[in-house]
């Protein structure tokens, strides 16, 4: 059979067009639509949570309480300055905002301004107009599930982490109850300040260690007993599932953390002494995950500023600690081979706080602040919807030193932005309800 040049070009052209336009089948047999190009290979989403009011953060009403993140030398208000804990010098050579874009007027647009609601919106990209059942997984798929289902090729759970500062409802955020997603696409979850604690060590820190021959026998026997039972515990009831090699890595990681804790490495890991709070420890453990696993997607939160319900001055103090922790996190990312200069970090509170104080007055005469903007968008205190957002990342990906002073961006932008950064936003079905990346104001942070 002969083929002239024109026919060859025509055939090759059709083949090439088909390769670009058609979905392709992975070795697993799953059909995938081709996904977009990645901007970076890692995203760290830091929820500066607990309820942070713009008045104290970007508007610096009491001076610059966040000098590691924000430019400005405004001194802390003298009446509360003496109550601030001494923190180490910034790990960064300049405030973090200079490594990216700062949005100063972002909205938590709809739904009650509760912590779990706010976290749920942050990780699903969809507002919830009701008070949520805090014992249940979100109804809409989380960013972890979207990533693990739609990223091509599919990635193991070890690539995605949800690191929570506390228990309560937060363990439920690593996957949703959505019938098309769920635990099979969930993230690894850890509440490290609970797990790597004295109580944790007491009950998990001294496991029986089997020899290699025993392990081989155990593996065969486990296979036998599970084959003789007609149900699997790992079909959702057991939470996120890692395959056996990854589960072994996780066991080793937990043991390593206990060994470090027993060796005193977490007594004063940042040189902050008694100023070290739960937020800082949570970030510290998130850094251990980053160093060990270099995850493609990690979400970590802080919540100690929520003391603001009772004590404004402690709220201000904890804002400073969260500020230091966020800068420390970025410094670790930039010093971790494989993640340095290939990571975008997004920092945003889950919601703000009220304009008007409640009845609690602290020792410095400051009124405490709740966060009570209910679903009707009218009653309560709508200032609790005002937040900021900071996006930092590599030169050429994130616009450096940009400050957006006008009202731009909302909480539901973060999920589509992460999906776009990791190159799978166009693969998320429209009926899932995640906002289209092209309609997200936060895209102004990127080239």
């Amino acid at each position: 059979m002969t083929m002239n040049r024109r026919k060859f070009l025509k055939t090759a052209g059709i083949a090439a067009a088909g390769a670009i336009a058609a979905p392709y089948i992975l070795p697993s047999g799953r059909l995938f639509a081709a996904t977009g190009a990645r901007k970076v290979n890692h995203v760290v989403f830091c929820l500066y949570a607990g309820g942070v009011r713009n008045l104290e953060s970007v508007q610096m009403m009491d001076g610059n309480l966040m000098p590691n993140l924000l430019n400005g030398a405004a001194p802390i208000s003298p009446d509360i300055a003496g109550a601030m804990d001494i923190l180490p010098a910034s790990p960064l050579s300049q405030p973090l905002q200079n490594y990216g874009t700062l949005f100063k007027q972002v909205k938590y647009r709809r739904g009650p301004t509760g912590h779990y609601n706010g976290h749920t919106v942050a990780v699903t990209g969809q507002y919830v107009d009701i008070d949520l059942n805090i014992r249940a997984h979100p109804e809409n798929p989380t960013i972890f599930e979207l990533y693990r289902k739609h990223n091509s090729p599919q990635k193991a759970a070890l690539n995605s982490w949800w690191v929570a500062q506390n228990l309560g409802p937060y363990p439920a955020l690593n996957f949703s109850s959505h019938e098309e997603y769920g635990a099979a696409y969930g993230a690894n979850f850890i509440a490290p300040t609970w797990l790597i604690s004295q109580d944790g060590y007491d009950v998990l820190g001294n496991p029986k260690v089997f020899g290699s021959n025993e392990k081989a026998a155990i593996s065969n026997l486990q296979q036998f007993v599970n084959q003789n039972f007609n149900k699997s515990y790992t079909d959702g009831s057991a939470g996120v599932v890692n395959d056996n090699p990854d589960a072994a890595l996780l066991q080793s990681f937990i043991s390593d953390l206990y060994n470090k804790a027993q060796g005193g490495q977490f007594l004063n890991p940042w040189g902050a002494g008694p100023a070290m709070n739960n937020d800082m420890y949570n970030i510290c453990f998130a850094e251990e995950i980053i160093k060990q696993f270099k995850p493609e997607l990690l979400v970590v939160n802080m919540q100690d500023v929520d003391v603001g319900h009772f004590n404004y001055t402690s709220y201000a103090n904890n804002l400073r600690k969260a500020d230091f922790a966020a800068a420390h996190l970025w410094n670790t990312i930039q010093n971790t081979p494989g993640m340095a200069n290939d990571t975008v970090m997004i920092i945003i509170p889950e919601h703000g706080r009220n304009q008007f104080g409640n009845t609690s007055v602290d020792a410095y005469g400051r009124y405490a602040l709740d966060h009570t903007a209910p679903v009707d968008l009218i009653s309560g205190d709508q200032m609790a919807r005002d937040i900021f957002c900071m996006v930092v990342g590599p030169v050429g990906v994130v616009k450096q030193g940009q400050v957006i002073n006008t009202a731009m961006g909302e909480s539901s932008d973060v999920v589509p932005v992460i999906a776009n950064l990791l190159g799978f936003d166009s693969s998320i079905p429209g009926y899932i309800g995640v906002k289209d990346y092209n309609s997200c104001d936060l895209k102004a942070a990127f080239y």
Partner: protein
Amino acid sequence: MNRYLFLFLLVVAVSSCKKESDYIYETTPVTVQQSGAVKNNVKSTTEFISIAYADLFGANISQGQLTKLGNVYASFGDKKVVEDRIILNFLNVPGLQIPATPSINGDTTAFVSKTYKKFYNREPNAFEAYYWKEQIRLNANVSPLVMYYVLMTSDEYRFY
């Protein structure tokens, strides 16, 4: 008079003492146990921890210990990983009630049967009994501790 009294006492004695009847219902004794096929419910966290502790130590877990375990259980997302670790820690705690290896060799079939009833609340089927008996007989690494660990980290142990 004495004769009437004697007759009265005789009637009372005869009528009040009656031999007890033995009723036979023609049923055979059964052991209440659950087939693996009908275990449809996943144990709750509290049930899993409490039952595992009782199975290994022959006593109820203290409330303080249960609270500690409940918190660490909630603090990690892969429940298989954390359950594995809980069981491995239990297996390293003094006071563990576990048969010594020689007693297995004495009556392996009985040991397998007893262990299945302890952890699965059922007898092993013929194939399971044979398989375990052979494993224990032929593989020195299959100790009582190994069998306990394998059954307690299996899918079936998580159901009732």
